[in-house]
């Protein structure tokens, strides 16, 4: 068999350097086998400290009640739900990379999908905390589940978007976890078979479920991945759509709009990619993975950021236009008096600057490929996207129909902020543990694309390119006849 999968030389290599299969394994697995660096320890302990502060903040909220927070009438959602929507949004990029880009056959996803999926799972774990603890009496959280009970049985309201959220977030978490772990099995088996110490062999032996690499199993594994990707794609779109329903089905001015689902989904992908950038730039530097997470990968993600950022910008302008066009005085007041101007005007303009104006710099190729600039932008975008949710929640709630129920200026308490910081602690604690004990790059998937997209192998494509067209077509045809090779046309 000759290499019949043709990959144009014009495309950037996905794996830099002269690598063999063994080298790929070595590069990715050695971080698990080596002792963590000092930087890892510092990062890990800082995360654990944040997590502990978060646990204490939540402890106060549970013991003394919601009064520990400054959420008030009418700003009942405040920081808490802002953080919830922000974290859920961040999770979306992982699924986009692992599922949607798989369906679109985007080869560059292989370098970043594993870590991005892990990010999704940890972000959804963080997101889930907020609505649960916002219930106040958290020990009653299971009341949201439809189980036979002694109250009638009284069932939850299936027509309520808040209940849809319970189903959406829990399904999203479960499916993401299954997708991620089924992809991990072969790589955990790789770690197991290389393990030198007994404990490592035992633990990775349990974790890899007895994976052997059988051809039949690979065939089923690929089919499974494809179907899970097909299921995750509408799922990820549905999750943020349902989150946006929490707002859109209400009659609060500024929330009651049909544009919310697409606007929220685009925003989610936008902020998620920014978080992926933040993590990947650190990861490739600390773990020395520049050959696998290349400038090409970073550029591709920056392109997604500029696209989704522009969609979000369009949505902001559409909202303003619709407020004016609807001729509803309440809508107009919310947008033109209390969002753009008013006591919270600063947050609106911060959101506009971070989300709409600054990402436009990514139209420049030079800036897209600049690591430091990308890192700064990724943080700017995440600040902007946090403020987007803050603007939506706070500036719609603080002044609505009745001036008598207008609220005073809202400031969070230290315990409200502490809860948010605590989820950062949870997120990064999980991420540090993941980067130490799991293969952060999908080893098998990299090997699968290595011979067509690796830097040293791409050179072989020139012989193919220089071939006579008839001869080339003939060879392809022969292989197809043999049935031994799947011919991939690009």
């Amino acid at each position, binding site marked *: *068999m*000759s290499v019949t999968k043709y990959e144009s030389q014009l495309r950037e290599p996905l794996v830099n350097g002269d690598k*063999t299969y*063994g080298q790929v394994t070595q590069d990715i697995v050695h971080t698990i086998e080596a002792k963590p660096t000092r930087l890892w320890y510092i990062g890990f302990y800082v995360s654990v400290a944040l997590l502990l502060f978060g646990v204490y903040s939540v402890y106060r909220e549970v013991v003394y009640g919601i009064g520990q927070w400054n959420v008030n009438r009418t700003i009942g959602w405040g920081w808490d739900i802002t953080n919830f929507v922000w974290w859920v949004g961040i999770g979306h990029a992982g699924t986009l990379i692992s599922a949607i880009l798989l369906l679109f056959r985007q080869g560059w996803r292989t370098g970043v999908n594993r870590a991005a999926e892990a990010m999704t799972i940890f972000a959804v774990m963080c997101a889930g905390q907020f609505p649960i603890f916002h219930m106040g009496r958290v020990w009653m959280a299971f009341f949201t589940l*439809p189980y036979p009970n002694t109250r009638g*049985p*009284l*069932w939850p*309201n*299936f*027509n309520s978007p808040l*209940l849809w959220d319970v*189903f959406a977030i829990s*399904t999203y978490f*479960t*499916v993401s976890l*299954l997708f991620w772990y*089924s992809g991990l*099995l*072969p790589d955990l*088996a*790789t770690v*197991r*078979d290389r393990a030198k110490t007994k404990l490592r*062999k*035992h633990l*990775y032996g*349990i*974790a890899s*479920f*007895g*994976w*052997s*690499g*059988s*051809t*039949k199993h*690979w*065939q*089923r*594994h*690929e*089919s*499974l991945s*494809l*179907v899970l990707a097909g*299921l995750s794609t509408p*799922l990820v779109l549905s999750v943020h759509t*349902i989150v946006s*329903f929490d707002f859109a089905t209400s009659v609060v001015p500024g929330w009651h709009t049909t544009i919310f689902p697409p606007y929220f989904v685009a925003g989610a992908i936008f902020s998620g990619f920014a978080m992926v950038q933040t993590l990947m730039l650190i990861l490739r530097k600390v773990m020395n993975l520049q050959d696998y997470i290349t400038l090409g990968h970073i550029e591709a993600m920056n392109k997604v950021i500029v696209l989704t950022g522009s969609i979000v910008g369009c949505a902001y302008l559409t909202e303003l236009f619709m407020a004016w066009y609807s001729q509803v005085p309440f809508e107009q007041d919310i947008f033109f008096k209390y969002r753009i101007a008013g006591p919270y005007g600063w947050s609106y303009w911060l959101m506009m600057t971070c989300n709409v104006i600054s990402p436009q710099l990514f139209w420049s190729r030079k800036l897209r490929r600049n690591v430091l600039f990308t890192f700064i932008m990724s943080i700017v975008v995440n600040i902007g996207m946090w403020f987007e949710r803050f603007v939506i929640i706070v500036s719609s709630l603080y002044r609505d129909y009745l001036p008598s129920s207008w609220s005073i200026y809202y400031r969070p308490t230290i315990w409200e902020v502490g809860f948010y910081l605590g989820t950062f602690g949870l997120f990064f604690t999980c991420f540090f543990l993941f980067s130490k004990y799991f293969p952060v790059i999908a*080893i*098998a*998937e990299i*090997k*699968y694309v290595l011979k067509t997209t690796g830097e040293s192998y791409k050179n072989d494509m020139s012989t193919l390119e220089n071939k006579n067209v008839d001869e080339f077509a003939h060879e392809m045809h022969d292989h197809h006849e*043999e*049935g*031994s*090779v*799947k011919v991939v046309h690009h």
Partner: protein
Amino acid sequence: MALKKFVVGCFEDEKVLFPAVAKVRKAGYKFHDIYTPFPVHGLDKAMGLRDTSIHTAGFLFGMIGTTTAVTFMTWVFTKDWPVNIGGKPNFALPAWIPITFELTVLCAAVGMVLTFCYICQLAPFVKKHTFHPRATDDLFVMVIECGEKTDEQELTTLLNSVGAQEVNTQVAEEGWWIGRYDQEQELYKEPNIA
């Protein structure tokens, strides 16, 4: 569950592997399996394996999810405890779409993964014989089962001639068992070599 004798040939390059598979098959040998570090497209066809139908399981589980969601919500809101919510109809199908969809996806995904684990015998604490530790790293490991009439010597020569880097014979359990990867277990008191 039985000990069997296998001839194992290891290949370093898939370019060598494919013609070798064709030749070994032509010579009439039966593959036990080929272990590869990553999915090699076309290898299943070359070995003569049929397509998987695991996606059908996914579809069936998905249908179970859809049916459960719709029938359950209908029963709750029209029979068990009808609630007047702002005078809206009790049978509020459009409002149930989100939950129906989520439950469909959940059942399809969970059901399919469990099916996958079941048919591939994958679970924590499951152990299988490792024919070559580098099969999950950078080697393509072809395993051929020795029948009563198989000439081991001839097979070894054939594998060497088609480009195998390393050829050996192993007596091993063909299935799975509950075990630990850090320990070698004695599975049989009296090995009955087939």
